[in-house]
């Protein structure tokens, strides 16, 4: 036994080290993905017997007005959330200086990302408050009528996304600040000698060097947009009349809420969301695979 271990330890050791991590991850992450896929083929209230309905839940989804609303909102989230990337770059460029106290400024600008989305949601619902909220105080000051952003179907999703952009911009800013730190100063000097400056310099010299930071920023922003649940739940609970639902929220609502426990239907929505996400995950893994091969 002892000698077997001695002779083979380099082959056995990795599995020994991997075992607990893989076991936990498989139990809580990998298996559940497949379980959800299987549950999505059943009608199930979470307690009683499951009854097999095949593709029934997916067929029902195709005719579900609320599903399309959520899907549409998810697309809006995906598109508008991307604004966090240029916004983050802009803030990063603004802060990439060496004046006194700049480190404190950088930390304070990063603040919104550190606090919970629950707090961000509460702060913004209060900011939008139709009677005394700062937004409407400001609108009133320039002579406009107050807007109840979170109670108006037309604005509600945009209002929530604006709240989400605040921490997300802070996140992208930090990614770009560290990226800017690594930009090669010699190339900048060379470009300056060639009379490059301003936007041209940014586009042709700086941005190509910021590619790794941009990549991570896109990945985390896409995932953040598709995962958007906290803010919707806190700020509107999906309302008014379900108009601010996103897939993540709608799934939760179907699976367990006052509308009853429809685990199968909820799982079907989750599978759709998963498939959308899978497109990006595959892209990310592909990029990582290329990098690994390159080493």
């Amino acid at each position: 036994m002892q000698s077997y271990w001695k002779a083979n330890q380099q082959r056995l050791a990795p599995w020994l080290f991997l075992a607990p991590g893989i076991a936990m991850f498989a139990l809580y992450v990998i298996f559940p993905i497949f379980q959800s896929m299987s549950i999505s083929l059943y009608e199930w209230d979470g307690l009683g017997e499951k009854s097999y309905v095949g593709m029934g839940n997916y067929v029902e989804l195709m005719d579900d007005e609320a599903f399309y609303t959520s899907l549409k909102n998810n697309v809006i989230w995906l598109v508008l959330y991307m604004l966090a990337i240029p916004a983050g770059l802009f803030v990063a460029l603004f802060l990439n200086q060496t004046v006194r106290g700049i480190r404190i400024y950088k930390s304070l600008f990063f603040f919104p990302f550190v606090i919970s989305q629950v707090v961000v949601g509460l702060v913004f619902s209060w900011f939008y408050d139709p009677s005394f909220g700062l937004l409407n105080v400001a609108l009133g000051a320039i002579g406009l009528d107050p807007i109840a952003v979170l109670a108006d179907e037309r604005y509600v999703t945009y209002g929530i996304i604006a709240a989400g952009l605040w921490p997300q911009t802070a996140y992208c800013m930090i990614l770009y600040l560290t990226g800017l730190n690594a930009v090669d100063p010699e190339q900048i000097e060379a470009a300056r000698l060639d009379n490059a400056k301003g936007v041209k310099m940014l586009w042709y010299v700086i941005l190509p060097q910021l590619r790794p930071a941009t990549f991570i920023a896109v990945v985390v922003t896409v995932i953040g947009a598709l995962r958007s649940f906290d803010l919707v739940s806190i700020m509107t609970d999906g309302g008014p009349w379900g108009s601010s639902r996103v897939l993540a929220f709608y799934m939760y609502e179907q699976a367990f809420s006052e509308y009853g426990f429809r685990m199968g239907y909820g799982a079907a929505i989750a599978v759709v969301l998963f498939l959308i996400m899978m497109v990006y995950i595959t892209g990310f893994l592909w990029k990582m695979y290329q990098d690994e091969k390159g080493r």
Partner: protein
Amino acid sequence: MFPTPIEKTRATTRTLYNVALPVALILWLLPLIAVAVTSVRSGGDITAGNYWGWPTSFNLLENYTAIFENTPFGNYLWNSFRVTIPTVIGAVALSCMTGFALGVYKFRSNLLIFFMFVAGNFVPFQILMVPVRDLTLDMGVYNTATGLVLFHVAFQTGFCTLFMRNFIRALPFELIEAARVEGVSEIRIFWYVVIPLMKPAIAALSVLIFTFIWNDYFWATVLTQGAESQPITAGLYSLNGQWVAAWHLVSAGSIVAALPPVLMFFLMQRHFIAGLTLGAVK
């Protein structure tokens, strides 16, 4: 450096920048500043609609003690710690091992397992929700801190493994080789050679995971209910329903809930940022 360092620009630009910096910061943090000011207002200010003017009185102590009286706020806070701290320890411990295994050894399924961790880390929570809730119920840990900790440890292992593995990859491999030549066993190499070198990574991950878990809201609502087990994020939401329009209390509660990760961030700033930008900057 880009943009041009401000000290090399004209005096007007410099002055402008020095003015713009604090102004931008105040605008950026306006929502938070408003919350901080509101948290010391009196209830009278709130009912009178004095949200934005100067507070008529400063009720710092009253408001901050009021949130702990008559509500289970202290409970929620304690639960957050009971969930967050064991999760940090568990996830970091597991990922030190997985990261070591994937970073040091060459075997055929290495990349496959690594990608499994990475991909799993990005899946939408919703696809895990129903089965994980069932599993938690079956194990009899639904509505307990343990239930949340177990899930969080498992899920965070994905991200932590990605981080640790990349960190270990960047370590000088010769050290491990040298130890092997000396006949040191693999387990002792892990413990005496690699772990001491991983201290910065462990610090960075700990802060990051602390913040992630402290701020988790979704799983708190899925796996727990009620004040005896829910963490502060879920607690704040239900208290918000209870304190209808009592914005001074909601604000004070928000500030207290936000404090631990903010303190963590300021104490461990450098590590925190190192954690967020993993691999983004080589």
